[in-house]
């Protein structure tokens, strides 16, 4: 398990860092990935929907366009059909009739360029229009042959003789008594078609035009030039009457282009609509923008939330680990002390054995000496024996003290008589005080109640303060230790010395760590700050009052009972 592994390796700070990072990344991934997958799916689906919607719309437009074109062509057709039915071949051979008819139609139907009647030999017998084309032989022309095959014919757009794009609608009529056909031919300007096309209103269509089956433009295209140019992207819609959509990968700006192609019935034309891809749709843009904003916001929110979460989690883990470490350190410390205590006690006992022997042997010598007659060195012997016994006595005192000291190593809270404790501490310092010729007087309140506290730490507190006092005095001075009950729940220990005292400035900093008035190398400067920490830890207070050349008074106040919080507090 990866969290577990991390947790295992997490006692180093570095471990926490990599744990933090891994947790952060995995949580970000867990919270973002599903959202983004759903987002992506929605995006895709929406895109698909929009796409098909757009295709449908384009197709509808194409179909609509086709319809209106068909209507336009049908109109022209019906005009031609009407003329051919209304007039006979013979009537139309009369140029005046034809011209008059042409003028009438022209007035009615815009875009009609000319009108001609062609006999069965392909010779234009009558012509009404702006050019002089009477007698022109069409028998060689392609469309003429095609028209003969059908009754009604709509031609491709072509330039013809007039160098103007136009198309022809022609109708074939049988001569009443012969197996021969005459043809009524009407030329219509492409403008007519173009007008019809421009009437097709299609939203956001880039290009709309007609092509023939060879891809030749039948009307002008905005993108691909003039009439009769080649449209490169044309493909036959096949048998599909409703038209087809093709997607063009137009290189222009990389956009996708949609193209609808639909056959215009009964004409050689195909209507082509070209529209830029859906990505340019406004709706799509808004959607995309919203999506992006959502993406960024959710990303930021997830980042922030996960960061906070990971932080609080790892902090908690670190906290727990630190607590565990602290407990272990504490256990290690106390068992270390306990082991020291046991060893010291063991040694004290062990030393007592030889001391007992020495003592008894010396005693025995003394006895024997007493029994024996006087001899020259008897006194000297007695003196030596006394020396031995005195030594044993002092050793005994030390081992006793050592035992007491050792016994206290593994106990933390106990009932303590502060007066006894102070006497004990003074026992440690007797020598030093003696050497420095410092008198230490006691003024102890014998009715002082016992307090519940940590003996070892109290010893250290008073040792530190007394040592400090002895150091401050240097030599030849006096100290006074005083105890008293200062309140229902408090006792006070006053340690007075007649040393040099301190200036207010020194006094202010005396409990700061590493502050020392000793010369460099003499002390760490930690003594009093540790003392301060210890007293606080035991739930007490320490105050200092000092006057230069008069002396210093330390006042240590200690509670009778340790409250839980005081015990927990760290110095």
């Amino acid at each position: 398990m990866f969290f577990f592994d991390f947790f295992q390796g997490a006692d180093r700070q570095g471990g926490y860092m990599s744990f933090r990072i891994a947790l952060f990344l995995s949580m970000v991934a867990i919270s973002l990935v599903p959202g983004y997958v759903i987002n992506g799916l929605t995006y895709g689906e929406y895109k698909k929907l929009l796409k098909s919607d757009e295709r449908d719309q384009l197709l509808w437009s194409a179909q609509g366009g086709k319809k209106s074109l068909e209507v336009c062509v049908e109109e022209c057709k019906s005009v031609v059909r009407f003329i051919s039915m209304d007039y006979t071949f013979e009537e139309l051979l009369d140029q005046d009739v034809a011209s008059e008819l042409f003028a009438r139609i022209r007035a009615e139907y815009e875009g009609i360029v000319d009108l001609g009647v062609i006999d069965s030999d392909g010779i234009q017998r009558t012509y009404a229009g702006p050019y002089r084309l009477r007698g022109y032989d069409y028998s060689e022309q392609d469309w003429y042959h095609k028209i003969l095959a059908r009754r009604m014919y709509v031609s491709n757009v072509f330039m013809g003789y007039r160098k103007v794009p136009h198309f022809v609608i022609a109708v074939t009529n049988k001569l009443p008594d012969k197996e021969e056909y005459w043809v009524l031919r009407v030329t219509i300007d492409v403008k007519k078609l173009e007008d019809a096309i421009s009437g097709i209103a299609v939203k956001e269509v880039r290009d709309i035009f007609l092509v023939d089956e060879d891809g030749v433009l039948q009307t002008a295209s905005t993108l691909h030039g003039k009439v009769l140019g080649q449209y490169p992207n044309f493909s036959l819609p096949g048998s599909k009457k409703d038209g087809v959509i093709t997607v063009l990968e137009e290189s222009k700006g990389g956009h996708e282009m949609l193209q609808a192609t639909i056959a215009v019935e009964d004409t050689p034309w195909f209507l082509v609509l070209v529209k830029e891809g859906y990505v340019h749709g406004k709706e799509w843009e808004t959607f995309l923008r919203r999506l992006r904003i959502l993406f960024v916001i959710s990303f930021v929110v997830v980042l922030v939330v996960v960061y906070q979460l990971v932080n609080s989690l790892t902090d908690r883990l670190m906290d727990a680990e630190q607590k565990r470490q602290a407990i272990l350190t504490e256990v290690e410390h106390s068992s270390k002390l306990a082991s020291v205590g046991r060893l010291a006690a063991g040694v004290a006992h062990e030393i007592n054995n030889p001391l007992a022997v020495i003592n008894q042997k010396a005693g025995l010598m003394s006895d024997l000496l007493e029994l024996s007659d006087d001899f020259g060195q008897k006194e000297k012997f007695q003196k030596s024996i006394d020396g031995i016994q005195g030594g044993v006595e002092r050793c005994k005192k030390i081992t006793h003290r050592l035992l007491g000291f050792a016994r206290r190593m593994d106990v933390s809270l106990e009932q303590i008589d502060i007066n006894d404790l102070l006497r004990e501490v003074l026992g440690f310092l007797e020598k030093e005080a003696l050497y420095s010729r410092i008198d230490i007087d006691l003024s102890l309140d014998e009715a002082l109640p016992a307090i519940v506290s940590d003996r070892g730490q109290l010893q250290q507190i008073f040792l530190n303060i007394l040592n400090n006092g002895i150091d401050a005095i240097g030599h030849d001075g006096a100290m006074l230790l005083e105890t008293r009950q200062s309140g229902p729940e408090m006792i006070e220990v006053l340690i007075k010395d007649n040393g040099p005292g301190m200036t207010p400035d020194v006094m202010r900093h005396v409990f700061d760590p590493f502050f020392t008035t000793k010369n460099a190398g003499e002390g760490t400067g930690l003594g009093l700050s540790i003392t301060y920490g210890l007293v606080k830890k035991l739930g007490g207070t320490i105050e200092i009052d000092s006057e230069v050349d008069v002396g210093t008074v330390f006042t240590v106040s200690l509670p009778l009972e340790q409250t839980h919080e005081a015990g927990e507090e760290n110095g």
Partner: protein
Amino acid sequence: MDKIKVLIVDDEVEFATAVAERLEIRNFFAEVVDCGRDALLSLESSVPDIVLLDLKMPDMSGLEVLKKIKEMHPEVEVIMLTGHGSAASGLSGKELGAFDYMMKPVDFGELVETIKLAYKKQQRATTAD
């Protein structure tokens, strides 16, 4: 008055012999054994008035020896000597019927006084019977 008979039980023979010799100088009758088993054996042949008993010995603990002595001869007063000087074991010795316990190294004068006191107590007890 008969000499007070003292049996000293201590694995530290040097200590025991020195004490014995000093007691004899002071007109006691002293005997030395160096382990619990020998102490019990010696008790079978002659009953002392007082036993000085070391708490810590290799073969059996002083408290065990004390129990056995008190079973065999309840009238014998036992003074516990201990280098293993926790007050607790001394106290448990007292609970088991020891007259007193003393910490090594003992002051010889005190020891003699204690022996005398123990003897007095024993005499009172026997005369009362």
